[in-house]
């Protein structure tokens, strides 16, 4: 049982899903209320990680973070090392990888808020931003919790992106799923079994909490996951 890999993975998932709440809310807000005619292209782009093989995503992230890309060079000039094969690089890869799992529940729950409430709020002197904060966000609690938990659970189990972007550095980028892969490669089945079981239990717990919370939600459409799962 590799506890180092386990806690590394939990830390990664917690950071990523927290950042995704911050990044995902504005994106979901834009996707919900924008009337831009090309919006569907953005929707498709956000949903890409769901269908793309993680290795493809990981490959592009690796290229983007590497010292040949402008981003990679900028980071290198700032910190003295590249983003590839670091924990920070892993965070960036995971953010992209789990983005739709946060954005889609957010957007679905924003969209489920009755538009007359927004009109009423405007007539009561609240700007769109204030309305979003005081009406839309509180009424989307269930969607926010769902998005957070799904992206957390999704990041816990990622494999391909981590392998491409982070490699397999113990204590830095070796996550729990890579650890399982290593142990199976080394024919160390009982250890692999323990770790896999732990991941299974944790993922199940996280999802149970989400479903349990949503059961008591007062929203009309509490379980607002996209049409994709």
């Amino acid at each position, binding site marked *: 049982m590799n506890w180092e890999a386990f806690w590394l993975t939990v830390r990664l998932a917690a950071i990523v899903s927290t950042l995704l709440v911050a990044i995902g809310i504005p994106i979901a807000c834009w996707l919900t209320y924008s009337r831009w005619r090309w919006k569907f292209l953005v929707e498709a782009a956000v949903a890409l990680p769901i269908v793309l093989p993680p290795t493809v995503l990981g490959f592009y992230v690796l290229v983007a973070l590497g010292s040949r890309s402008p981003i990679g060079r900028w980071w290198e000039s700032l910190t003295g090392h590249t983003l590839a094969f670091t924990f920070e690089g892993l965070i960036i890869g995971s953010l992209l990888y789990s983005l739709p799992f946060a954005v889609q529940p957010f957007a679905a729950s924003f969209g489920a808020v009755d538009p007359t409430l927004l009109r*009423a709020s405007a*007539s009561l*002197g609240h700007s769109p931003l204030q309305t979003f904060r005081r009406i839309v966000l509180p*009424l989307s609690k269930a969607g926010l919790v769902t998005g957070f938990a799904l992206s957390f659970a999704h990041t816990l189990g990622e494999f391909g992106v981590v392998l491409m972007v982070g490699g397999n550095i113990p204590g830095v980028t070796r996550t729990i799923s890579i650890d399982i892969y290593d142990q199976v490669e080394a024919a160390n089945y009982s250890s692999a079994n323990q770790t896999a079981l732990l991941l299974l239990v944790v993922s199940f717990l996280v999802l149970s909490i989400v479903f349990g919370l949503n059961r008591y939600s007062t929203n009309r459409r509490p379980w607002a996951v996209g049409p994709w799962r």
Partner: protein
Amino acid sequence: MALKIPFPIQAAKPVFTESISSELEVRVRKRFANPEGSFILNVHLRALAGFTIIFGASGAGKTTLLDCIAGLTPPDEGRISVGGETLYDSEKQQNVAAWKRRIGYVHQDLALFPHLSAEENVAYGLRALSATERQARAREMLTAFRIDHLRERRPAQISGGERQRVALARALVTEPRALLLDEPLTALDRPTKSLLVADLRQWNQHHRVPILFVTHNGEEVFALGDEVVVLDAGRIVAQGRPHEVMRAPRSETVANLSGLENTFDATVQALHEARGTMTCRLAKTTVELETPLVRAEVGSHLRVGIRAGDLLLATENPRGLSARNILPGTIRRVEQRDVIVSAFVDCGQAEFEVHLTLAARDDLQLRPGKNVWVVVKTHSCHLLGV
């Protein structure tokens, strides 16, 4: 008159200590869609402090009109101003955002915030005030609207009439410059309605703002209106005091809306200037009616409208009545709708619909084939322009 009142940016500060009449002027044109196709809303109206009823069938453009005033939907062109301040002007490309307009709007479905208590709902529009002041003002308003005991409850936990009160209180507490009410009483029973209207009137005695009250219920027009504007397919077809517009409807739209069940084409037969009446013959019949005198010439054509509820039925030829028109006829059909019985009486090719009570039907044993007399008062005959 051109007194310019500086409005602070904060939404809800009570700026007016004195009562000041503000006037709402609306001139809008907008294409809008309803289930029967698309209409052009083309309205020019001026509302002074007090109730102005916007009356019309559903789909006439009433809600679209309110949305334009509130800034929730842009007109295609026109100008909207309240208390001398322009809110929208297509020529000058002016369009004040809805949240800066200070126009109270109570939606048809109330739109109470489900996650906030009654008190929080009412305090919602008082953003600019401090928390303590906000609470004090909200409580004051809840008390004024007799819902103080509900302040901790969520909208889902209170009755329909109470919800209506919360919605009104929420709009009024912000001291709006005009108030838009979209069928706010539809769901209420009559006593609850009149109590709420009394509270609203009381509030407006101090505030003197224009209140646009949308309804498709003719009864509410009489109960509330200082002024009524009748809207049909996006246009104003009649305007004036409720009694002038509704009791003597000069257009058929109004007649249908206000429930004139009997309308006939008629020709003027004789004028009786001295009596203030005239005789009209209903087209294609031998039936003659004595109606109020209007400016018309013998031989001119017009339409006569009579409410089914204004007609009497007699099973014997009545004597000693003041009513000028007593028409013999035969009952063709008797229908019952709810507690109202409609008898359709054929009086020489003219069919009259007469409304009766269930008891009257049973006492007089009214059934098809029975011979009866229809009694029509002169002043129950409304002459409609053709």
